[in-house]
């Protein structure tokens, strides 16, 4: 779905952002070439959650439950930091 962009008369002056927490509306998910896949061998150490620069690791009750692909840019930090020898975060080509 294409989001309707605002006109020059509708946006705040000077390119300002006047709402706090606004970046959640800015979907950066379509930037990625590779996407992380969350595997079942995950020990829920939460290191990926800690490192993710886009808060795209979804956690609930101390467990990783999934990935917010609409904000994940596919940087691969989660996979790189995953301490398991057999990674619980695996990068795959985003087709």
């Amino acid at each position, binding site marked *: 779905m294409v989001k309707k962009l605002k006109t020059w008369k509708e946006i*705040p002056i*000077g390119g300002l952002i*006047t709402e706090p927490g606004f970046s959640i509306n800015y979907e950066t998910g379509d930037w990625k070439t590779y996407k992380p896949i969350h595997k079942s061998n995950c020990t829920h150490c939460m290191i990926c959650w800690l490192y993710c620069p886009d808060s795209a690791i979804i956690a609930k009750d101390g467990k990783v439950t999934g990935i917010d692909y609409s904000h994940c840019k596919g940087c691969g930090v989660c996979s790189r930091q995953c301490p398991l020898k057999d990674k619980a975060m695996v990068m795959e080509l985003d087709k």
Partner: protein
Amino acid sequence: MAKNVSLTGNDAVGTALKQINPDVAAVFPITPQTELMHKFAAFVANGEVDTHLITVESEHSAMSATIGAAAAGARSITATSSAGLAYMWEMLYIAASLRLPIVMPLVNRALSGPINIHCDHSDVMGMRDAGWIIIFAENTQEAYDNTVQAFRIAEHKNVLLPIAVCFDGFIISHTQEILQMLDDAEVKKFVGEYQPAYSLLDTDHPVTVGPLALPDYYFECKRQQIEGMKNAMSVIEEIGVEYGKLSGRAYGHFETYKLEDAETVLVGAGSTMGTARMAVDSLRAKGKKVGLLKIRTFRPFPADAIRKALGNAKTIGVLDRAVSFGMEGGPIFSEIRSVLFGKKINLKSYIYGLGGRDIFPHQIEDVFAEMERVTKDGNAGTTENYIGLRE
């Protein structure tokens, strides 16, 4: 009550700033502006203003600190000349695009090289498209008056753009002239309390200043700036009239002198227009139909009004104290030619005074004589002309 005082241009503008008492001034010295902020720093040191004066390590920092202060909601100023302005280059665009009403006295000086400390307009012409309002002064009185009005223009809610208050280095900045100065209370009342549109310090209404805008929004931000500049056109006029009621000296976008029936007209900006006025008086005494149009507002450029004012002239010469390398005629010439597109008027560009070279009334009389010949025989000759250059 207003009073007559004798001051240099720098002193007069410094005193205007004292009367306005801005919140923050971030400054770095450069000839010929140095004396201005030297005077103002003395007012700060003596407790005559409560401005927070920041002595920074460069002009890039001066403009950056001014931008930061303005974004925090402070009435913020800086001042510079020549290479100092060039060093602010990147930040000039930031100030304008963030819509921060910064006031900057700009004491016009040539740009290097060869290195030169004297007056020309090559510094300000370089910032032509940075999105700043640009106004010129002919003398110390106008430099003072423009400084007082600048805050109202820049801070107007329909404008919110930074403004460069230009006056000629040394010729105005260091020459002592008599001017009429308003009372501190009158200036304070005229300028009023600054109410910023947004403030980084207003934690109840948090804002992000200077975020990224990619191809999806950058264009819209620029269109808003264009609108602010358009709005400045009427705001400058309104404030010029209001200032006239207060001081007896009303201001518009430009000033005409004996223009109504003039066939031969010179257009220009800055201190040389005073010299040109002498030449006009002398030629008028000999029955010549000559006149002047002195530009005060260079950005926004008052195109329609100038087209009307110059429409009946037969030959127009444009005085430029700056060069646009690779284009015939200086920057003001290009605007005038553009404004008069389609009109059958002879146009000649006259570059003069680069690097502070003196210009005398007799030289301007010679220019008028040359233009009169053009009016008579209809042959405009070369567009590219220089005054006072050794050929």
